[in-house]
């Protein structure tokens, strides 16, 4: 317990407090398989950096003698072992949070014990952290579990990874062993898009390279584990991003004051800046940034504030205040990664609730396009998702929501899934992209429009949608119709199923979900062609009424004509 700040505490507490006040905060997650030494490592960090209380220390000494694995020496793992009760009772636990502070920083560690529930636990723990420490046992090297942890870390958008290669004492502090593991890891990590990686050889048990550079490993020139954690810049990527504030609460103490309270989840804001409220699209400017401590000149990502706008525009809980030029999209259909966290399996088509930011909306999910084997990263066919499975699905909401992709902004693209009956949290999701924009304000109106093109063409646009089974004669009939129209001087185009599958939908197969997606693409293309003024003949096996309705709804009344060929 060598503590430089102990002297300062004793000699000048006021100065210590002032320094402590200014510390930043780092939240990190530790990932390791059972017996990699995770508990020992966390216990060691707590012990080395904190003033471990005397009674805790006395208990630790006693416990180390009684149940410790170190033959009576201090067993640091026992410091963090608050979970034995659950283990014995077989209760599921997800994440335990630990706290410690050093001279430079305060830390919150998300510790995810257990391996059966690993995916759920890790995803939960990772969602609030800036960095991941991945443990590797030097004797074992990069294992399946290491890959799994790294994949989850990368999926959850953590960009900084520290690989702590532990138990170097058991491999004679060998540089070769370490180098091999490092290069194995880097090769793998690059595949999954992790690039910001630091590898540190440590012995959690002996304290090598934890807080002090190890005399046993003169060949290692890099930082100690704690040294790195204390100084790594937690680049607040969201800070340089566009301004975002989901409104949590409308603050109306009286008729004079109307403010919108929320946490800024992207960018910065100043009085006078123009903002837009989504989904309504109404615009105003920020008049004041109000807090209990007085008005602010500027507020940044992470702060909880109350904004007063210059104009009385209608804004309610769940709306997002955003920067005008760089606004989020608004959509009601998405592709998303879904992480299922409940014993009862996910059911495609069943109505669930989605909570994204402060907004709760109705949601259904398609059959998964695929699920991911978290050990091999293979894509597997799936009809549903079970507990701890991850898959990619299409989502449909009952109302449009403003969002950014999860990659761009975790708060604007991450959501939870809630059961409508039990209210349990069933899973989590990460928005990848919108399948259909619901944001009418996004559609650019052109001067040369449909009406102008109709005048030029001498006829209005229309989609004629031929449906029917394979072999029913759709292609023959539509072909004849087009010839006839062409002879009349009409501007036509025939969208044929096979042709589309050769190009636009080359990546799709014939599962129900893929068929739905194929029709969606065709419907969207049809819409553009109708907008271009054409008479569009669509010849497709389109078995799902929902999708035909979707196509119809994309167009205006009178622009869609369905022909069933039998």
């Amino acid at each position, binding site marked *: 317990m060598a503590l430089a700040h*102990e002297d300062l*505490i004793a000699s000048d*507490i006021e100065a210590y*407090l002032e320094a*402590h*006040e*200014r*510390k*930043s905060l780092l939240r990190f997650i530790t990932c390791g398989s059972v017996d990699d030494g995770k508990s020992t490592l966390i216990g060691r960090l707590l012990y080395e950096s904190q*003033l471990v*209380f*005397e*009674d*805790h220390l006395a208990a630790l000494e006693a416990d180390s003698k009684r149940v410790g694995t170190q033959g009576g020496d201090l067993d640091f793992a026992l410091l*963090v072992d*608050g*979970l034995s*009760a659950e283990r014995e009772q077989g*209760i*599921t636990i*997800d994440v*335990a*949070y*630990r*706290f410690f502070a050093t001279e430079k920083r*305060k830390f919150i560690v998300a*510790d995810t014990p257990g391996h059966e529930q690993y995916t759920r636990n890790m*995803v*939960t723990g990772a969602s*609030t952290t800036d960095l991941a420490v991945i443990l590797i046992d030097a004797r074992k090297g990069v294992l399946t579990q290491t890959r799994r942890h790294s994949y989850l870390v990368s999926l959850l958008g953590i960009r900084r990874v520290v690989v702590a290669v532990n138990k170097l004492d058991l491999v004679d502090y060998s540089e070769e062993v370490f180098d091999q593991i490092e290069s194995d890891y880097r090769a793998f990590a690059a595949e999954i898009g992790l690039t910001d990686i630091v590898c540190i050889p440590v012995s959690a048990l002996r304290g090598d390279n934890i807080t002090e550079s190890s005399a046993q490993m003169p060949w290692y020139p890099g930082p100690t584990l704690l040294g790195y954690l204390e100084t790594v*810049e937690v*680049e607040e990527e969201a*800070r340089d991003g566009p301004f975002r504030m989901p409104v*949590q*609460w409308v*603050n*109306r*103490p009286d008729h004079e004051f109307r*403010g919108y309270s*929320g*946490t800024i989840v992207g960018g*910065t804001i100043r009085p006078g800046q123009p903002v837009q409220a989504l989904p309504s699209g109404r615009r105003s400017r920020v008049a004041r940034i109000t*807090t*209990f401590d*007085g008005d*602010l000149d*500027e507020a*940044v990502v*992470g*702060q*909880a504030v*109350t904004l007063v706008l210059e104009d009385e525009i209608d804004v309610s809980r769940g709306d997002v205040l955003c920067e005008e030029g760089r606004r989020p999209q608004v959509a009601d259909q998405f592709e998303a990664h879904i992480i299922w966290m409940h014993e009862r399996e996910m059911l495609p088509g069943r109505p669930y609730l989605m909570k*994204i930011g*402060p907004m709760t909306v109705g949601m259904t999910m398609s059959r998964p396009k695929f699920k991911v084997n978290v050990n091999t990263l293979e894509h597997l066919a799936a009809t549903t998702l079970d507990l701890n499975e991850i898959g990619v699905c299409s989502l449909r909401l009952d109302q449009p929501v403003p969002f950014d992709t999860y990659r761009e902004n*975790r708060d604007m693209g991450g959501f*939870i899934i*809630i059961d409508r009956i039990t*209210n*349990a*949290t069933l899973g989590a999701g990460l928005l990848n992209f919108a399948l259909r924009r619901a944001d009418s304000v996004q559609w650019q109106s052109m001067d040369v429009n449909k009406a102008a093109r109709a005048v030029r063409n001498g006829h209005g646009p229309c989609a004629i949608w031929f449906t029917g089974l394979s072999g029913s004669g759709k292609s023959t009939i539509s072909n004849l119709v087009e010839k006839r129209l062409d002879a009349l001087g009409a501007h036509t185009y025939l969208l044929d199923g096979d042709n589309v599958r050769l190009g636009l939908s080359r990546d799709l197969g014939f599962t129900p979900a893929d068929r739905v997606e194929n029709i969606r693409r065709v419907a969207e293309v049809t819409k553009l062609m109708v907008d271009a003024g054409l008479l569009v003949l669509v010849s497709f096996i389109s078995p799902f009424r929902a999708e035909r309705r979707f196509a119809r709804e994309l167009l205006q009344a009178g622009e869609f004509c369905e022909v069933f060929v039998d």
Partner: protein
Amino acid sequence: MNEAQGDQGSTTTTGLVATPQLTHLQRLEAESIHILREAVAESENPVMLYSIGKDSSVMLHLARKAFHPSPPPFPLLHVDTTWKFQAMYDFRDKMVAESGVELLVHQNPDCIEQGINPFTHGSAVHTDMWKTEGLKQALDQHGFDVAFGGARRDEEKSRAKERIFSLRSAQHRWDPKLQRPELWRVYNARRNQGENIRVFPLSNWTELDVWQYIHLEQIPIVPLYLAARRPVVERDGTLIMVDDERMPLAPGEVPVEKSIRFRTLGCYPLTGAVESEADTLPKVIQEMLLTTTSERQGRVIDFDSSGSMEKKKQEGYF
């Protein structure tokens, strides 16, 4: 806290004018405010449990920040045992008068009738009847669906994995199977008829953070946290303050004046004092950091049986 911002901006390597990085206390504060707002927005009838201790003081302060310029949109509930320190009652009444927040006080009528007290009934029965049962009664009586509590994850190892939004059955039981994963800043506050949710806005604060914040924000606290000469008797190695005449003294037992303070406040007969000369907040923090045993040592109830904390939680103590 915001005045401090100006001079701690870090510059990024890109050379852009960097916006100031939030300090750990600013981040904790913002997180707590976010939690308070979210719970209130999703609740029909929220309440804040107010124990008069330092954590309650911080929680109330945060609530005033979260809803400013509105007053906190919920009442405070003090589940009283009639055995708190007199200084706590005085402080409570003063705080309520000054802040204008509505205060509800509940005293379990069964306890009053049976005269439940820690001396004849023991600490376990006393605490269970006054606090655990009293709290359930009060929540049921008013139909509160969300109750804010000041518990922290660092208080005890078993607390480390407690949720921020903790669901209780209609019988107020904490069922581990009902607890929900919590991701990002998205909290699921939905509940069925009869269920209620305990919300802990201070979950991620440590004891030091709380003290530091009280110091920084100059939040008023009960004077018992600071050392002064007070009459005490020593029982089983614990210093108990003789706060009023209800304290039975053993034959020959004479209270002595000692300079003492409390690290945690509860019912006076159940709360151990520490000998100390720390009569200012910085000195208290200094002592806490340098010597010490962990905070809960002062709470006599913890010694009743091992794992008692976990048991109390299941029974609805928190």
